[in-house]
């Protein structure tokens, strides 16, 4: 099939444009796709974020995307083509699986590709979660025992309180 824009070169890119539920399709050559701004699969996102519906997604038949189309996200099962087709990323792990392929898109949307803002405390495997030191663990234990001891005293359970006091002394030694 020839490119629908120039009518000269072979069409290698299949563009599916969805605006407010209306789908239009076109076939373009690589040059025309690039010059019309369709080269990047997420280029529509910059315009469609937030409340606006629509934007376009391209389902490319270009060789480079064919090579890795067998790869799937291990968690949600999305392939790269699924993501492109839906215009949505499937899950957090998709970003890790397809990170390298997403970088040019991110560069294009945001201009930068390195997060500099707030970080999540409970961040998953990629965040530097510091192990607690022996000292910190011991102090935490003492804190907890002291709390239990004062509860026991408040309930006039002096036997338990005495046991807890001994435990605390042993830890503080």
């Amino acid at each position: 099939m020839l490119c629908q824009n120039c009518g000269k070169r072979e069409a290698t890119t299949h563009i599916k444009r969805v605006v407010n539920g209306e789908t239009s399709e076109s076939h373009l050559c690589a040059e025309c796709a690039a010059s019309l701004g369709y080269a990047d699969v997420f280029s529509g996102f910059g315009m469609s974020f937030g409340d606006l519906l629509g934007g376009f997604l391209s389902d490319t038949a270009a060789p480079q995307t064919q090579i890795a189309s067998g790869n799937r996200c291990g968690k949600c099962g999305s392939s790269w083509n699924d993501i492109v087709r839906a215009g949505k990323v499937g899950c957090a792990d998709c970003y890790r699986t397809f990170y390298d392929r997403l970088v040019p898109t991110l560069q294009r949307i945001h201009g930068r590709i390195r997060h500099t803002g707030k970080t999540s405390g409970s961040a998953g495997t990629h965040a530097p979660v510091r192990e607690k030191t022996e000292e910190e663990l011991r102090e935490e234990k003492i804190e907890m025992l002291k709390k239990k001891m004062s509860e026991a005293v408040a309930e006039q359970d002096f036997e338990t309180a005495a046991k807890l006091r001994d435990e605390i002394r042993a830890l503080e030694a």
Partner: protein
Amino acid sequence: MNKWYIEKGDQGDVVLSTRIRLARNLEAYPFPGRLDVQSKKKVCAEIRDAALSDGSNTFRWIDMASLTPSQAVSLAERHLISPEFTTDREGRALLLTEDESVSIMLCEEDHIRLQVMQAGLALERAYDIADKIDTMLDQRLQYAFDERIGYLTQCPTNLGTAMRASVMLHLPALDATGRISSLAATVSKLGLVIRGAYGEGSSARGSIYQISNQITLGITEQAAIDNLRAITLQIVSQERAAQEQLLKSEAEIDKIWRARGVLSSARLLSADEFMTLVSLVRMGAARQIFNLSLEKLNELIVRMQPATINAASGQNLPPAKRDAIRAEAVRTALLTQGDDTQ
């Protein structure tokens, strides 16, 4: 308790409100686009339990599927939820504080869309509130986060801080002098976007616009907020100057008084006519041509939207009936105001 939108705000003659929105997702679940209704309900319940386990915020829990269409659209008219959230409501829920300043959409485009609204220009304060709730949730839930690209969101445009800060502006004079489109072009070069806050497309009903940050990756929350505040303040001073200039004309002042006259005596007011006239009256109040409380006008704008009138009446009213109710409410509001200001 007063709703947030009847509070008096900084730069209140031009700035109606400030909004901070944070998008967050749970690591353990696929994004909402890949969840069935049952899993969405599970995600909603998990986030609800986390939010309610902290005593400092008392949230009302609203199952979106339990609302009538009018009730749902009314939430969007009050900008508490996105218009998208009113459709396809099965498996979605909302957490809302009593003063409606904090709302958390569950299973919208992302698992969590936390939103804080404040009157006037109050970016720092709104962010501070959002940040605290976010941190509280972060301690109880496992967020989807990657140190390289930040908070992971269903759409890559929100990656990074996943924060949208926005300011709602009343720009009647810049609108009347045809300067909004050049303003839009200018702010887009600065990483911001401006669009009409009511209604679709480019025509902004009541000359009310929303300006927000576009870029979320590679910029800190603080820098994004500073940028938005600086540009907002410039627009505010441009709008003020344009209003002063416009109101040098006797014909423009006459328009404003006539608008007030119609609002004070009409028996039927469509939403469009109301928005056009209240915009003129608000400009008159902003430039103190007469004494009307801006906060009350802001509240009126919120209350007089079609679905909000329906929701308040508890039924689906025909437009003519709605127009009569609107006219009466507006008359009453302007009348009671005249008493305490003259």
